[in-house]
């Protein structure tokens, strides 16, 4: 594969021309359909609700005044333990629910969700569990609306690295491909991302030295269309000729993916990309972040380590990059840059309307870029306690580091903020375009860090650092609580409209509605609603288990529902999931969340709320035995 890619900038164009022929009829309608579907309140057709990934619902039935009447309507247990990240999808009458490993999928008809319409329970190599870095999570399903050739599909990833398309009506497998091999440490936890007739799938496993990559498959045939890497020669990374022309100081097409590494280190250099992607159908560009360089021990990889830790803007058809902005050159803290991208249209400080991209990064900075060319608009601390850097120089794009909080061999660095888990991790934060506020689900965590040396062995953990995480200075380190914050952020002014502290990190994310509410789940198992203007707590409900997924909403037969996955797990809860006690186990999470096991236990499912608990079973005859 790689040898051929010397010519792949040309050949991928050739490759594509054959698929474009395929697209010509299908492409436009399928994509338009998906864009149409996401506009309706009835649907939640992709993990981020829409291509802008703003999780903003215009639904207003539930508002500040009546939210106190929110009651459970119905629920479903997945029968699976471990962390239930992501959210279900709703398309019309149908709801699709996923689970962590073994990655079961269930389909329901919302008119009678007491009946499973179909289920898909794949058989997988169980060894996948042993190479998953941080619990066996999965971030959910994707939907492709179908065309004249191929029926509508549900697309899922499995921990073993397979991507499977299922016929949405029946659950039958349409195609199934491998995107990696678990004996190389390549797993999948990411939700597939659908653009036009392509399934775009990232990669996981930087903790095992996996060289990050991104693969696109033809939704009709399962054929691979392109693959681009995060490290290596430009031909492997897929750069447009004019790559970073608007910001040459970010670095351009000069094989920086090789030259910023020593020797072969780029081949095991990480930069996996398992986070949440966004897409702009007008610009036909998609956006995502590549993750941390491998190993975590910085001494083992001299150089800027491009293009890990990068915000990418790539062409939707070819995958070629128009811009790439590396946020944390030569990472020393595992600030994996995979977090979500949220798209907004806002006036900048000079009053100029711009297409923007906002990305709350693990490193404690929330970045806003012009998503047409990658210009850096703002880069502010998510919390003033972030100390590894003084600030981001907007002119150069470089972080001005504070050497006191850098890390290196033979040294335990203390009180670094944020921790490796980031001030913001996989949380689906949200954006309310009417208020022009970003609602950030924040982890308030800091850490001690001590590196060690180790040789690379394919398929084995390649971390090279011990980490001890704990609540940051605004929390209670002694008691292990006060590790979360919810903040309303204005990306143009850099100001916070309001902020509140939470007992535990807000791992799952949030959703905001035109009813003036921001909803989110907590690790200790509450679903909460706050006033999106003031942050005031208006409603909460105790769920059976803690939450690491994000809430969603849909309107069915005139009733607005609020729904959320529960099932504690994921990185913050590995101690609870695997019954660990050592504070540095679980890549440092066990110490930080020692209190969590006193509040909740594992057990996954999904629960739906509505005003007064209205729902499909108000008609008592629904689901009853019929003669």
């Amino acid at each position, binding site marked *: *594969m790689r040898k051929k890619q010397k010519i792949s900038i040309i050949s991928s164009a050739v490759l594509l021309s054959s698929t474009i022929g395929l697209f010509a009829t299908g492409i436009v309608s399928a994509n338009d359909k998906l864009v149409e579907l996401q506009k309706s309140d009835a649907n939640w057709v992709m993990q981020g609700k829409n291509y802008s990934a703003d999780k903003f619902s215009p639904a207003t039935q539930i508002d500040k005044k009546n939210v106190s009447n929110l009651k459970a309507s119905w629920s479903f247990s997945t029968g699976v333990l471990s962390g239930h990240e992501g959210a279900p999808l709703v398309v019309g009458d149908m709801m699709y629910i996923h689970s962590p490993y073994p990655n079961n999928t269930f389909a329901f008809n919302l008119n009678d969700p007491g009946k499973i319409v179909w289920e898909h329970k794949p058989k997988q190599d169980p060894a996948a569990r042993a190479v998953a870095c941080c619990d066996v999570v999965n971030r959910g399903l994707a939907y492709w609306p179908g065309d004249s050739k191929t029926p509508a599909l549900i697309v899922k990833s499995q921990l073993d690295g397979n991507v499977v398309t299922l016929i949405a009506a029946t659950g039958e*497998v*349409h*195609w*199934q*491909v*491998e*995107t*990696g*091999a678990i*004996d*190389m440490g390549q797993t999948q936890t990411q939700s597939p991302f659908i653009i036009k007739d392509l399934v775009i799938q990232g990669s996981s496993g930087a903790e095992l030295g*996996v*060289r990050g990559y991104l693969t696109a498959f033809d939704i009709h*045939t*399962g*054929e*691979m269309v392109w693959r681009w890497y995060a490290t290596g020669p430009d031909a492997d990374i897929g750069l447009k000729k004019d790559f970073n022309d608007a910001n*040459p*100081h*970010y*670095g*351009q097409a*000069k094989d*920086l993916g090789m*030259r*910023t590494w*020593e*020797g*072969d280190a780029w*081949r*095991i250099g990480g930069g996996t990309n398992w986070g949440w992607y966004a897409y702009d159908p007008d610009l036909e560009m998609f956006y995502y972040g590549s993750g941390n360089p491998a190993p975590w021990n910085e*001494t*083992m990889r*001299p*150089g*800027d*380590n*491009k293009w890990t830790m990068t915000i990418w803007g790539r062409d939707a058809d070819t995958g070629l990059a128009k811009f790439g902005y*590396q946020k944390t*050159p*030569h990472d020393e803290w595992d600030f994996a840059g995979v977090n979500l991208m949220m798209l907004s249209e806002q006036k900048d400080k000079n009053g100029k309307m711009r297409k923007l991209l906002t990305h709350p990064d693990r490193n404690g900075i929330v970045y806003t870029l012009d998503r047409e060319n990658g210009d850096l608009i703002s880069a502010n601390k998510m919390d003033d306690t972030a100390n590894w850097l003084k600030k981001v*120089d907007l002119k*150069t794009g*470089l*972080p*001005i*580091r*504070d*050497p006191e909080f*850098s890390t*290196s*061999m033979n040294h335990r660095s203390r009180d670094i903020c944020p921790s490796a888990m980031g001030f913001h991790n996989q949380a689906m934060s949200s954006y309310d375009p009417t208020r022009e506020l970003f609602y950030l689900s924040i982890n308030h965590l800091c850490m001690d860090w001590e590196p060690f*040396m*180790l*040789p*690379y*062995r*394919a*398929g084995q953990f390649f971390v090279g650092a011990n980490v001890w995480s704990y609540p940051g200075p605004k929390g209670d380190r002694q008691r292990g609580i006060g590790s979360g914050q919810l903040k309303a952020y204005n990306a143009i002014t850099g100001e916070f409209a309001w902020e509140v502290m939470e007992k535990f990190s807000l791992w799952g994310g949030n959703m905001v509605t035109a009813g003036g509410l921001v909803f989110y789940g907590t690790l200790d198992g509450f679903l909460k609603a706050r006033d999106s203007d003031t942050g005031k707590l208006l409603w909460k409900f105790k769920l059976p288990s803690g939450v690491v997924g994000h809430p969603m909403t849909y309107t069915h037969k005139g009733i607005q529902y609020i729904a959320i996955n529960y099932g504690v797990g994921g990185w913050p809860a590995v101690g609870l999931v695997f019954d660990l006690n050592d504070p540095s186990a679980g890549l440092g999470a066990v110490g930080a969340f020692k209190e969590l096991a006193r509040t909740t236990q594992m057990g996954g499912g999904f629960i739906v709320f509505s005003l007064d608990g209205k729902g499909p079973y108000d008609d008592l005859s629904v689901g009853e035995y019929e003669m």
Partner: protein
Amino acid sequence: MNKLTILSTAAAVMLAFGATAIAYDGTKCSEPGICWEAKPGFPDKIKGSKFDPKHSQTELNKQDISMKAVDARNAKRAANFKKTGKWVF
């Protein structure tokens, strides 16, 4: 006048020394996108140093080999799917 010059060079030397002592701040770019510099006391190339991890070439090659095999299996499946209309994993 002479004294003054000596003084100011001393100050300059101290400044330079101070700058290396403060060390890594990631902002000294030799060309766009290449800004990293080694921390004081650490080599800028680890090969042959005490921090040389001595990776095995065989191990380094494995991801490439594995990915080629994955792609070959997928291509076979897709070709069969096109031909028969049935997906065989």
